[in-house]
């Protein structure tokens, strides 16, 4: 094991580098990803090492990026598309949902779409409009796409490699608020199995299950620390993927704890939390001590930066939900 301390962003860079090295038909495409290295520098240095034909600065047109990636896939190339910010993915939404997601299906498996769409998402960085959104439910509701979001540098590294290797299109959501967090990453580890499908128990516990993914895993872990100080043992489940969702891991946890709180930055209304709550209610009905509760964004456009900390699910709001669950 040759672990090194890497930022979350750098772990993705190294995952992309490993993918470019292992398969010459892997391409990176996006706006400003070449000489600039991307606005978050995630592709920093890769154009210099792999050339302009493999790390491609594209015209400023998101539908064009994804649409041409589909054509490249038909010719046997595996494109990793960078969308600059969450709120800018929508020009490509048509290509992603009507074309990319359905190409395999409508061709009865004759055409393969190994395309990754990388999207920095989520808030908490004091940004302007359209730079802090969480659109995962919109993609998860589209059959044919896999939708994942790592929460740690190691997962970021493992999951980007798995996403590039996947024969299915993957929406890879990067919690931009976590880009500069650091942790040990083992770059030599064999590609991890199941990281695009399986949830992981980030912290074991026995009194309540906190379900999170991407940026809110850190929030849930902090809440679990605070709860431990009060004598409550919280288990934190990191979903990793919101399509598919690893319900067995969630259900197993809730059957033991009897309580469940789902935490995500996206609006609660019609969100992933509703899907988890429905499923947990269906499968854990007699084990539940309280209704499944959700903590997340509100059904309002992402607010101005001055208000975002009142919008985002804070540790305090998670603790409030756990209190309501415990006192039900």
């Amino acid at each position, binding site marked *: 094991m040759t672990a090194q301390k890497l930022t979350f962003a750098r772990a993705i860079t190294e995952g992309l580098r490993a993918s470019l090295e292992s398969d010459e038909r892997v391409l990176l495409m996006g706006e400003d990803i070449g000489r600039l290295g991307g606005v978050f520098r995630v592709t920093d240095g890769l154009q210099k090492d792999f050339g302009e*034909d493999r790390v491609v600065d*594209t*015209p400023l*047109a998101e*539908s*064009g990026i*994804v*649409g*041409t*990636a*589909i*054509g*490249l*896939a*038909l*010719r*046997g*190339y595996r494109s990793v598309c960078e969308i600059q910010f969450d709120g800018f993915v929508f*020009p490509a939404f*048509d*290509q992603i949902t*009507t*074309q990319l997601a*359905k190409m*395999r*299906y*409508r*061709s*009865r*498996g*004759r*055409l*393969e779409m190994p395309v990754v769409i990388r999207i920095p998402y989520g808030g908490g960085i004091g940004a302007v409009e359209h730079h802090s959104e969480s659109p995962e439910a919109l993609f998860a509701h589209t*059959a*044919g796409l*896999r939708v994942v979001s790592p929460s740690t540098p190691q997962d970021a590294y493992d999951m980007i490699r798995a996403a590039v290797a*996947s*024969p*299915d299109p993957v929406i890879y959501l990067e919690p931009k608020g976590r880009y500069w967090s650091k942790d040990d990453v083992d770059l030599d580890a064999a590609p991890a199995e199941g990281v695009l*499908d399986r949830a992981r128990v980030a912290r074991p516990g026995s009194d309540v299950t906190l379900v999170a993914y991407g940026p809110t895993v850190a929030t849930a872990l902090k809440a679990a620390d605070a709860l431990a100080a009060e004598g409550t043992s919280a288990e934190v489940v990191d979903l990793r993927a919101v*399509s*598919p*969702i*690893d*319900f067995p891991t969630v259900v197993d946890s809730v059957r033991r704890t009897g309580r469940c709180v789902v935490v995500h930055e996206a609006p609660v209304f019609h969100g992933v939390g509703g899907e988890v709550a429905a499923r947990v209610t269906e499968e854990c009905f007699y084990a539940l001590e309280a209704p499944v509760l959700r903590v997340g964004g509100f059904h309002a456009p992402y607010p101005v930066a001055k208000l975002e900390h009142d919008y985002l699910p804070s540790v305090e709001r998670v603790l409030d939900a756990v209190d309501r669950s415990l006192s039900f």
Partner: protein
Amino acid sequence: MGTEATDVGSDVPLVQLVAPDGARVTTAENAAYRDRVAHLTGEDLRRMYRDMVLTRRFDDEATALQRQGELALYAQGKGQEAAQVGSGRALAPQDYVFPSYREHGVLQVRGVDPVDRLRLFRGEDHGGWDPAATNTHLYTLVIGSQALHATGYAMGVQRDGLVGTGDPGRDTAVVVYFGDGATSQGDVNEGLVFAAVNNAPVVFFCQNNQWAISEPTTRQARVPIYKRGEGFGVPSVRVDGNDVLACYAVTAEALERAHSGGGPTFVEAFTYRMGAHTTSDDPTRYRDRAEEDYWRKRDPIDRLAALLRAEDAWDDAWAAELDAEAEALGERLRREVRELGAPPTSAMFDEVYATPHAQVDEERAWLARYEEETQGDESQEVAR
């Protein structure tokens, strides 16, 4: 006269090699295009005629099958056979085609089986054929989306080193088909941007059939459609879309440019949709009979027949054989389309993903169980 309202820039010169009466057109401007068809023999012309006649017959049969309730929908290509067959016949086998959903004549030339072409319209398949078998992609129903797929594919061809090799058996180009309405779509415009800056080997083949369902070309552009290509720095040309030789010639020129590394071309084939947009459409609500009559006199099949006769390339025995072949095609379609069954229920879950997806697998299993458990109930209901 309706055409005044519909022909944006109808006074713009276009490449024409055969006049509506079947006479060859010889001008100083079309000399280079005449050279591109000079090698075509009477047999070559008869093969094009055959493609066009069989495409027309396919169209008429499919329209009838829809009227009989055998197809959910059908998009007629009647009147556009010259644009489709002429461009299609210019392609090399290794060239790749991205059709829209009305390119039945292109599919005829590429060898996509006629029954397979109707699976989508039958509601039996969302695609219908193996694209790799004929280098012909599936139909795309979202207007203009395929322009980007074609451009990306062409960018892949460049990376594969199959442009400018000088070997006509290896150099590869891509042709994408779309209509006048599609030129308003962002994806077509983005396709032109990406193709231009990458110098990608792709031919943008726009069939301007004058109508986007009910909207005339004047609702799409205030310039002749081919001018749109020029704005992107893409060489552009308008061709008489009802003149099969002219369509062949401009496509051959565009393909030569693409194959040799000269990049993209925009072709506007000026033609007419003689039928409805689809079998769900009613053109009498928005266009007049006089306009349809005007274009009926310019029927591309009549024009090629006149040329063949004028040049003694017509052969009555051959024509009788072709009639019989068209009859046999019609008979086969009527029989085999009706025989197309429905896929098993479980097929709705097939190939959603390449690798297992827990929710799809659960729902597939649930539906199978449900069907098994309720099978008895349903047969009772039928018995009642």
